[in-house]
């Protein structure tokens, strides 16, 4: 058997397809990304550190990561609720709403940005009712949270939904037979099963929000130190021809995304093991 191992696949085309895959991946993704890393290496450690820890840059991390965490928490709470409602309950318009959940994936970010900014501006559809209450959304950090919630909304729903579909009714029946009330069943049986997928959705939503640009710049107000997001800061540096500054900050952002990618992969492994 061992001898035939290399030849036990009769399908043709392995060499050319894998070759093209690696070539195209290198050309479009890997080489351009490595350009960023190499350019950062052109900076001394001191220069790099001074750039990425400047007060304005630090403030932008705080705004970006802080708002992304709040948005991901909102999405985790409501995403679980929406997934549960869509799978377990029957009500008119359910299929339409199920399809609508993916709107933030399909709607271009610039369109989302100008729309949210308009709705929540002081005389917009929603903003005019918040204004008398003293709540300002557009052009404040609150607007950033709002737009990040919009773009991250599908992630938790779409990771939790299939897991809810797979829950076996027998488990709930067993819990009931053993004397658990509905709330105990939800808390002690169902929630632990959903937890890995909730965390995966949370991480995906957070990662997306951290890198987001298009939907945020219209609603953020973009005030340095207050409502300036890190991706915008990269563009600002670029427009001032400060390539070194832009490169250093971009490298920090890239490291952040890679760490998130690693965490997401581990979470997905965990949830898969749970499913088996």
């Amino acid at each position, binding site marked *: 058997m061992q001898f035939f191992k290399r030849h036990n696949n009769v399908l043709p085309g392995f060499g050319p397809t894998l070759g093209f895959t690696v070539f195209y991946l290198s050309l479009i993704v890997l080489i351009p990304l490595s350009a960023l890393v190499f350019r950062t290496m052109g900076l001394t450690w001191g220069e790099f550190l001074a750039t990425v820890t400047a007060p304005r840059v630090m403030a932008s991390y705080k705004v970006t990561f802080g708002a992304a965490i709040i948005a991901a928490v909102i999405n985790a709470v409501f995403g679980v609720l*929406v997934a549960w409602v869509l799978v377990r309950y029957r009500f008119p318009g359910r299929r339409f709403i199920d399809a609508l959940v993916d709107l933030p994936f*399909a*709607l*271009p970010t610039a369109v989302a940005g100008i*729309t949210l900014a308009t709705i929540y501006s002081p005389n917009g559809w929603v903003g005019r009712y918040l204004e008398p209450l003293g709540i300002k959304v557009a052009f404040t950090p609150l607007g950033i949270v709002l737009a990040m919630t919009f773009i991250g909304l599908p992630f938790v729903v779409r990771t939790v939904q299939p897991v809810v579909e797979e829950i076996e009714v027998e488990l709930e029946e067993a819990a009931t037979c053993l004397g658990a009330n509905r709330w105990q069943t939800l808390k002690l049986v169902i929630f632990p099963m959903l937890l890995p997928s909730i965390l995966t959705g949370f991480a995906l939503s957070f990662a997306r929000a951290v890198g987001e640009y298009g939907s945020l710049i219209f609603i953020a107000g973009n005030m340095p130190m207050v409502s300036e997001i890190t991706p915008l800061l*990269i563009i600002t540096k670029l427009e001032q021809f400060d390539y070194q500054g832009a490169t250093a900050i971009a490298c920090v952002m890239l490291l952040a995304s*890679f760490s998130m990618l690693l965490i997401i992969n581990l979470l997905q492994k965990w949830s898969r093991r749970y499913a088996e």
Partner: protein
Amino acid sequence: MSALNKKNSSNRSQTEPAFVRWLLIAIAMSFLTLFLALPLAAVFGQAFEKGLTVYLDAIREPDTLSSIKLTLITAAVTVPLNLFFGVTAAWAIAKFSFPGKNLLITLIDLPFSVSPVISGFIYVLIFGLQGWLGPWLQEHDIKIVFAVPGIILATLFVTFPFVARELIPLMEAQGKEEEEAALVLGATGLQTFFLVTLPNVKWGIIYGVILCNARAMGEFGAVSVVSGHIRGMTNTVPLHVEILYNEYNYSAAFAVASLLAFLALITLAVKSVAEWKVRQQFENN
């Protein structure tokens, strides 16, 4: 499984009391209305606020038309390239086993986790005036950044994983027995692919392509960095929306934006159908 669910949903101990159910439905729907339905309605509401004539004029304006043309060109180049890549990658990954397969899948997904701003920026670092190839390109009078090729490259990057990540699990699930049977019966490799594999993954391809296209036509951040915002020259539709909006020309901005929102609705409709077909196929297997 779903039949069981339905039967049991009438069982009182297996579901929440009716008022809790309706309360949860009400909360979920209010959340979705506020975050999804309202913005969607607002795009069209703002677009038609000043009447159909203003709407049509905004779309017929030459700068808008040239931005539509550029967006169509970009999608027409990037979608077929990434489709070809997605199909070849899925063939290699789903039908064969080799070391480093998981790493390869992770690397293919990489562009999804990179900020759009960085996706554009890396091409500026390579092809820009201060970039690696910048001086050489200038000598030979080739413009990539702040021109159409840059826009296409950045779009290729951000839409890179769509087709591949949809096809890989689908083709893995379908195994290779059917292909092996075709080959044994004397079909050539290409015949096997076009007559056996392709019909099986048709809806998966449609799903990947429609999402790839939506992103290609709607990408803002990455394209914004490499475009240079030259009106009538290097403005795609999303960039044109930004310009109109920043000029306080709100009705025109929303009129053009409504085209993209309309595209998003078509995308969602096709996606739902494709998803349903793929699911059916999975269940039949």
